């Protein structure tokens, strides 16, 4: 009898040891990927909405401004979902009997709200405020992506805590002039795409937009300020030229009085 195990068993034994190790590692990797996967975050998913509303068509095609529908973005924590009336304003005249818009007309007639599905849905214990972001130079597109290119709405980003922190720890890389907040096509400054900014004399007590002025064309004889009525433009001398997001970002951090990463990454900023 002697041998209990066959010759091959030695090799087998060693192999199985190695395999176990590999499996453990694989498991870890999978879980790590899983928690960030769209399956969990819904990133990029397009839920079935009562009406297949196309931001692309309305924003890019018709040039409707963000605030036209999302009225309170600048004044409240909540950007606002347009009431049915906002749709009807136009659709009382155009596409009055398009099949697609039936639910809208229904809602208007019956007084029942359109049950939209939240695309950007934060956990209930997260307190996000649109107003402060919009007033401090974070553009819509920074979080929501190129909405003007989305036929159907989806979440561009994971909206996970690590994603929020990524910016809260270094806002400079996403800051843009408040005048450019709603500019979907805004791109970071570059040598061929410079930005000129100037700081007003009176800064404190003034809303950010009025204390700093930025323009995307050489301020000179004829100034095209996107930020303020031409009257408010400051003397040419004061303008500083920026050719990279980094420079601009840090300039804006200083003059928009953005709080320090330490403050912005503190728990109570988002959780109460």
């Amino acid at each position, binding site marked *: 009898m*002697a*041998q*209990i*195990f*066959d*010759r*091959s*068993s*030695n090799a087998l*034994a*060693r192999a199985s*040891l190695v395999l176990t190790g590999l499996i453990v590692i694989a498991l870890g990797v999978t879980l790590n990927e899983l928690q960030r996967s769209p399956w969990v975050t819904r990133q990029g998913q397009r839920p079935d909405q009562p009406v297949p509303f196309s931001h692309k068509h309305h924003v890019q095609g018709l040039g409707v401004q963000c605030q036209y529908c999302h009225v309170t973005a600048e004044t409240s924590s909540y950007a606002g979902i347009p009431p049915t009336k906002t749709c009807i304003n136009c659709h009382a005249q155009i596409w009055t009997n398009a099949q697609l818009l039936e639910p809208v007309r229904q809602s208007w007639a019956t007084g029942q709200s359109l049950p939209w599905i939240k695309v950007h849905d934060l956990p209930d214990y997260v307190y996000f405020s649109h107003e402060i972001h919009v007033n401090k130079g974070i553009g819509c597109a920074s979080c929501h992506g190129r909405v003007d290119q989305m036929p159907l709405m989806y979440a561009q980003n994971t909206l996970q805590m690590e994603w929020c922190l990524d910016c809260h720890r270094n806002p400079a890389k996403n800051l843009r002039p408040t005048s450019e907040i709603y500019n979907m096509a805004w791109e970071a400054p570059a040598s061929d795409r410079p930005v000129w900014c100037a700081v007003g004399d009176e800064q404190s007590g003034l809303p950010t937009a009025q204390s700093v002025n930025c323009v995307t064309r050489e301020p000179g004889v004829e100034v095209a300020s996107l930020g303020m009525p031409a009257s408010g433009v400051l003397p040419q001398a004061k303008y500083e030229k920026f050719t990279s997001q980094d420079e601009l970002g840090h300039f804006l951090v200083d003059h928009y009085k953005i709080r320090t990463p*330490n403050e912005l*990454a*503190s*728990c109570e900023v988002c959780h109460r």
Partner: protein
Amino acid sequence: MAPREGTYGLLAEFDTPGDLIRAAQQARLDGWRRMDCYTPYPVEEVAEAIGFHRNKVPLVTLIGGLMGLAAMFLLEVWISVWAYPLNIGGRPTYSWPAFIVPAYEWTILFAGLSAAFGMLALNGLPALYHPLFNAPNFCDGATTDKFFLCLEALDPKFDLVEAKKYLQSFQPVSVVEVEY
């Protein structure tokens, strides 16, 4: 490795550790090197007899321990000072006294695991199949109350007939040939 063929070695069985040690010492004096002894419990003298004095287990353990220490302490410092610095009850982010404890535990953990698995690895275990198990008397004795000396065929001095004679000279209980 391709299964070898032929003789693995000659196995001599003894009743007492004393006999085994004597035989082993003699064999080593006579220039045998590829040999090994098998006992049901640790007998230090035997290992000495076949000239096995130092092993690498302590070194492996030391390295393991140091790794554990470094790993945990660095992790702690990275987390508390760099990754997410928070004001915890007014304590400084680099609260090294607090970091000592987990680092200490991991030192022991890694050292311990290295000691155990290092030993097994150095012993080439697991080795579920071994030629010696072919020897009829080995299994019953080696782990209970018999003491074995094995001269391996790989030894340059090895010659089946000679070796058998040589082993007989120690008046073992038996001498058997072990196949691969």
